[in-house]
């Protein structure tokens, strides 16, 4: 394997302090992600998917113990200094959250929020940053981007807000994009548009993507590789086709069985 690894995770564990002792929410997770590939992480609610992403960003809750190693293009993330992490976040590694309403500041215009990323990480002036932000909004398929920059989040639809978040995450052309259920809150038609956009952008920018979802249809559509998480452990991982054709673990089998029974093309009861 000669491809450059955008992200290499080895034995990553996250333990939360709880009233009745410590609780391990991510346990000994390892995977490697070459540039330009999309890794899907599947699992039910509470399996630790989101905690894994937060640990990669150094955003685990206070008191959490994070162990193991996570290399972002060779740079160690686990235990890194806060100032180092702050320089990397939104810059070399960026995240898109599930709920596009709460992830944006309702008091600030879209333009201010986008430009800030470039002012902080690239040292651009506000006007330069706004110009660049406008081009990025255009790239994620937002019409009238100049007008959008002056609007507030509540003036945009859910799908448009999710595009704004995607644009914000992509402003610095990160090596790795983390996406936590980015389309779960959206209409199916908008979901498909956002996923198609993600595939286009991956092609154009060559970034690596970690996409967390419980929707096997989403994984089938965009993932190159899939890892299945259950109770904090990656129980199975492999190329998407192989995993769908011959699932080994019971967790994967039950996810796939439910997805196939509940498929728009399945024969239903009627």
């Amino acid at each position: 394997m000669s491809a450059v690894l955008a992200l290499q995770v080895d034995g990553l564990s996250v333990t939360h302090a709880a009233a009745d002792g410590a609780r391990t929410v991510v346990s000994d997770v390892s995977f490697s992600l070459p540039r330009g590939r999309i890794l899907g992480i599947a699992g039910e609610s509470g399996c630790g998917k989101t905690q894994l992403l937060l640990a990669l960003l150094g955003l685990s809750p206070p008191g959490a113990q994070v162990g193991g190693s996570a290399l972002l293009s060779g740079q160690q993330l686990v235990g890194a200094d806060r100032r180092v992490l702050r320089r990397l976040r939104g810059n070399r590694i960026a995240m898109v959250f599930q709920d596009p309403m709460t992830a944006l500041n309702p008091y600030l215009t879209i333009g201010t929020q986008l430009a800030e990323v470039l002012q902080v990480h690239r040292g651009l002036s506000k006007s330069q940053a706004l110009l660049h932000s406008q081009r990025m909004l255009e790239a994620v398929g937002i019409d009238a981007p100049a007008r959008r920059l002056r609007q507030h989040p509540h003036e945009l639809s859910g799908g448009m807000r999710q595009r704004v978040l995607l644009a914000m995450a992509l402003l610095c052309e990160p090596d790795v994009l983390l996406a936590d259920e980015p389309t779960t809150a959206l209409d199916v038609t908008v979901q498909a548009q956002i996923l198609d956009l993600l595939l286009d952008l991956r092609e154009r920018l060559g970034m690596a993507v970690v996409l967390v979802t419980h929707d096997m249809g989403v994984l089938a559509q965009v993932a190159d590789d899939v890892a299945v998480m259950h109770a904090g452990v990656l129980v199975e991982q492999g190329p998407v086709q192989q995993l769908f054709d011959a699932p080994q673990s019971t967790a994967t089998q039950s996810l796939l069985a439910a997805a196939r029974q509940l498929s728009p093309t399945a024969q239903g009861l009627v």
Partner: protein
Amino acid sequence: MSGPLLLEARDLAVHYRSPGLLRPGPPQAALQGVSLQLDRGEALAVVGESGSGKSTLARALLRLEALSAGQVLLRGEDLAILSSQELRAKRRDLQMIFQDPLASLDPRMRIEQILSQPLRVFEPQLTAAARNARALQALQQVGLDASALQRWPHQFSGGQAQRIGIARALLAQPALLVCDEPVSALDLPIRLQVLQLLAQQREQAGVALLFIAHDLAAVRFLCERTLVLYRGKVMEQGPTAALFNSPLHPYTQTLLAAALPADPRAAAASRARRRQLAVGAPLSLPSASGCVFAARCAFVQPQCAQTPLLRQVGDVQVACHRAGEPALQLRGSDISS
């Protein structure tokens, strides 16, 4: 499974006035000219994107929303002319389960109290012991046991809370259960269990379902007929199998092309289909009238400036001038293989 006509809606319209203290905006049509029929024990799906009027339709059918035109008939009886007392008695026949299962249970009531409410209202002659027995029976029907009775709503997961909501609705012994996105907040395996439960209750209790969803997979699983709404108007309606296998309206085609099959081999075809149905920039038509879908339609033509009426094509009714033309034909294999 279906029986005689239970519920009929004729030409429903609902208008909202946009807010504004001094200059209220013009009324906006949330629902226009919607007619539907539901037989006893039948399951009808209403699908469409957010803002298409699905929930407004459900609320209008239950008379929770003021109609600006049209009639709702329950077993031939017009709900609009009933007094509020008569209407309350009829409400027993029309029960609803909600999208957010936890928000629909009072956090300060134990499950026992929650489940005995409908019995207190609709069967006041029951003794406390009889009510408890019925509540327990309802819980068991939805797969929970007696230990749940003394617990509080927050002690349950989303799937369990939705089961309790279904038990509460069924205790009224309704003829129609209106389900507004009942499984969209649930994880996939739990979603499947709740859908199976609804199918089973429909079979056993003979209750009809009006199932509001944007999840086409759930619709395919549960409902034999489907109605597609876009901006408050019916685009297409008919048997679910016909609609899903050969959708005639470009909007139905768009919805189906966006439903992602859980099969990596089908991904490329699914994406190609979406590209085929996409329009570059939304078109602006000369008049405000005409087909409401025209601005998003890949097959738009000058005639689309005229409002298309619902017409019968094969097994389905469709509101599109071009429905059935070869240019719009979508072979089932394009999306399902």
